[in-house]
């Protein structure tokens, strides 16, 4: 029923990157098409700058808040005010469960906020929940300049 979904993962911790790639491999109809390991790289990827001129624009972004070079909150704010990129759903996936972080993240127009799991099984559950909701239940926007 659902279409396939391409995800950009923005995550600096290599262990978490591996866990997430592992988790999404267990889930059908979703693919991690790119990994950015800091905030600057994430923006370059989405704007197809530098080494990312051929980057495939994702259907959804998984964003950790704590990133080197440019913090995830800044990335979020920039993306959600960029007319070409603002519509891409951003799922913030981060360790903090602090209320102020949750509030601030939603105020910056993150689409949703998920507390980062610790073990692979929980990552697989989250990956599966994300796949199910965003491809079977919700409709995704069409990317500007997509073809």
């Amino acid at each position, binding site marked *: 029923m659902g279409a396939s979904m391409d995800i950009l993962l923005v995550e600096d911790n290599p262990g978490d990157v591996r866990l997430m790639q592992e988790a999404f491999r267990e889930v059908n109809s979703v693919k991690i098409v790119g990994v950015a390991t800091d905030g600057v790289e994430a923006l370059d990827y989405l704007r197809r700058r530098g080494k990312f001129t051929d980057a495939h624009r994702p259907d959804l972004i998984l964003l950790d808040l704590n990133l080197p070079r440019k913090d995830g909150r800044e990335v979020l704010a920039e993306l959600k005010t960029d007319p070409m990129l603002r519509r891409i759903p951003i799922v913030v996936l981060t360790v903090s469960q602090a209320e102020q972080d949750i509030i*601030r993240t939603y105020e910056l127009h993150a689409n949703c906020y998920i507390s980062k799991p610790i073990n692979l099984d929980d990552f697989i559950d989250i990956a599966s929940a994300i796949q199910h909701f965003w491809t079977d239940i919700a409709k995704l*926007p069409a990317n500007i300049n997509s073809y």
Partner: protein
Amino acid sequence: MVEDNLGDARLTREALKNGGLFCCLDHIRDGEQALEYLKHEGRFAGTPPPDLILLDLNLPSKSGFDVLAKSKSDPVLKRIPVIVLTISRAQSDINRAYDLHANCYIVKPINLDSFVNVIGAIQEYWLKVSAIPPRQRELTCGLEP
């Protein structure tokens, strides 16, 4: 829930009750009232903001897009997740809703079983998987974002 169709509203209420997770559903039937409700004006003065908004785009008196745009630009309301739940499957509507910062867009199923399934999926994702901002008690709590 901002929904002008009484049948859909009743179905939603029933489906949510069966899901067991929601405690309280306020039902508003048009866009003007939705904005009054959200801003605590008129007869809605004193009601706390909701934790989540289910929004139909086809509303009498003010389009759902206006309600969406107004909530998402209001400093107090913009944190509230807005789940668009509406008949239109037009890609232009979907795109526009996301551009206006709808948290997600769901096409309202016509089939009863699918409708109940979708409401269950919303509860599951938004109340169990995703964290949402804590309930707001005060409109002006003094903490600037």
